[in-house]
């Protein structure tokens, strides 16, 4: 774990500029998600709302270490990482609210958001499936002779139990690809606790089985996350093969806004894992003299105002129209299978 002293002077992954940027993105993500929850409760959002409260530090630390040209396939609790990678509050709102102007045009929603042509891949719901897709993208980059790029993806503790997780990570290791895999162990896969999910000491122990380098990190500490993930991304970029990071933290909300979180263990909640990473980061920002409490409050107000305005704008935007929708799953119209008897 990085010490305060290291954070202040010698750690190349921690400096005022990066830290403040990371903190501000975490704050933006938190405020945006609070707005999403409010819109959900008001009935403006169809489908689910899945929040990353408590996971912003781990998430932003990955996104902020990626560059233009890298590949990023986030998962459901990565609003902060997404915004650090370049996603916007506007496109998030558009996707949740089903705006035709959003990147998914109402064809997919909420956290299933991305722009693959820009290296930002939209997840499917089947956990672990994005790991091999990112590996394939990295293979393509290798074919093209590109070096110094990384592909990053994330997963939760539950997702590590899937076959796709195993196959994807193994392929990345066999091909020695610059893949960074961040595992957020938030201690619940929906409602299932760790003890019903895996039997090893730590999910980090699995990395050795794949021949993959691993770092364990306190996921509630932005300092630690920036340090560990910065080092992992650097190693991947330098050609040291796949890197895995396991962040220990606690999801501070239910699986989705529909979930009352009744299964939360109070002891876990009161433990150090239950601390709010955003509050910890804010304390560090203030204690290091990088911003005042008033400035943090002011940023919070500004972001909230911005998100409110964006939500108002998006709520007035056009929704998809089934009449003009092309209802075509293929890019090449010559191969459409559309007999008269299918038509309505």
């Amino acid at each position: 774990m990085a010490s305060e002293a290291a954070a202040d002077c010698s750690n190349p992954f921690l400096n005022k500029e990066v830290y403040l940027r990371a903190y501000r993105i975490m704050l933006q993500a938190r405020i945006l998600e609070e707005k999403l929850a409010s819109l959900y409760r008001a009935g403006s959002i169809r489908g689910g709302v899945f929040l990353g409260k408590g996971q912003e530090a781990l998430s932003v630390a990955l996104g902020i270490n990626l560059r233009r040209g890298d590949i990023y396939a986030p998962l459901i609790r990565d609003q902060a990482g997404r915004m650090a990678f370049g996603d916007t509050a506007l496109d998030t709102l558009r996707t949740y609210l089903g705006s035709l102007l959003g990147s998914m045009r109402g064809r997919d929603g909420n956290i299933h958001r991305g722009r693959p042509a820009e290296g930002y891949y939209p997840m499917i719901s089947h956990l672990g499936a994005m790991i091999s897709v990112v590996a394939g993208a990295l293979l393509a980059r290798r074919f093209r002779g590109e070096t110094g790029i990384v592909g990053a993806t994330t997963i939760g503790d539950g997702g590590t139990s899937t076959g796709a997780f195993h196959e994807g990570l193994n392929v990345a290791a066999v091909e020695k690809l610059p893949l960074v895999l961040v595992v957020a162990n938030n201690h619940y896969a929906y409602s299932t606790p760790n003890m019903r999910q895996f039997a090893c000491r730590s999910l980090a122990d699995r990395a050795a089985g794949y021949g993959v380098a691993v770092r364990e990190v306190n996921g509630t500490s932005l300092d630690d996350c920036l340090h560990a993930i910065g080092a992992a991304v650097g190693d991947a970029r330098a050609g040291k093969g796949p890197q895995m990071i396991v962040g220990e933290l606690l999801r501070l909300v239910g699986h989705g806004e529909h979930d009352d979180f009744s299964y939360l263990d109070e002891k876990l909640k009161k433990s150090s894992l239950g601390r709010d990473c955003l509050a910890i980061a804010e304390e560090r920002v203030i204690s290091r003299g990088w911003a005042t409490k008033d400035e943090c409050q002011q940023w919070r107000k500004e972001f909230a105002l911005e998100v409110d305005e964006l939500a108002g704008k998006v709520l007035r935007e056009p929704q998809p129209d089934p009449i003009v929708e092309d209802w075509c799953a293929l890019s090449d119209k010559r191969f459409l299978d559309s007999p008269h008897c299918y038509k309505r």
Partner: protein
Amino acid sequence: MSVTYLEAIRAAQEKALREDPRVFIYGQDVGEFGGAFKATKNLAKLFPGRVFDSPISEDAIVGVAVGAAIEGMRPIVEMQYADFSTCGFNQIVNQAATLFYRTGVKCPIVIRMPSGGTAGAGPFHSQSMEAIYAHYPGLIIMTPGTVEDAYSMLLEAVQIEDPVLFFEHKFLYYHLKAPALPTEALPAGKARIARAGRDATIVTYSAMLHESLAAAEILLEDGYELEVLDLRTVKPLDTDSILASVARTGRLLVVSEAWPWGGVAAEVIARVASEGLELLDAPPARINALDTPIPYHPNLWAAHRPTAATIAQAARKLLEL
């Protein structure tokens, strides 16, 4: 000189690799070994670094292909057996098949599926899975039944910007021969009249094409002239050609090696019933494999799948209605 169905598949891949630097081949044992059926024989040597072995990880194999396709490559995946594609099913139907509709980004991958039964292959190396995949939007399903189509349709599949599942029949690999590789081809998505006739239409595809043609020969002895329509591509399904043939003959028998429930044969009959009921002089009929796992013993296997004799029997019954 002649070329087998399997050699045509190998030749198409060699040509694709030679002409398009975006093409690579990925799958189990496809590298130096040349594939379980030798469909990639010597290709790793001819194209270093572009034909390589995967771990036994069907899910990841397809996931890798999708990621590479997003980044501009043209991967050809070899499933060692179509049966094993169930282990990669999720990536095929939920990742590859949905990508374009969801994001507008194309997914030009080809998945080669060595399919269908051979004597002694048993329940897990014999399946015909085209209907399962045809069920999902976003996939093109090719089922070549001739050497010429095995070659030309595979080359076309590599050019297509959408995911193509290429169901090549193992029974045809070594025995089916043509004088030479074709120089021109009917486009994918178009059915072909393999044999013209006036009394009934047999709609079929893949290895059943040859059983159906043999059945037509048997019935010729009784004075019946059967038309045999080779679908070539089951999705898209060339409904117009099917209806045109049924309009000429008034009778329809659909032959498929796959299981009967919800399959290609059922879909063909549903379409003819919906769009051309008035064209029929008798209820449409189908003959499929029996509704059990595919048996190991050659005696059982031969009775499990449609054959020229059972197709002829079904056709005779249809003609006598």
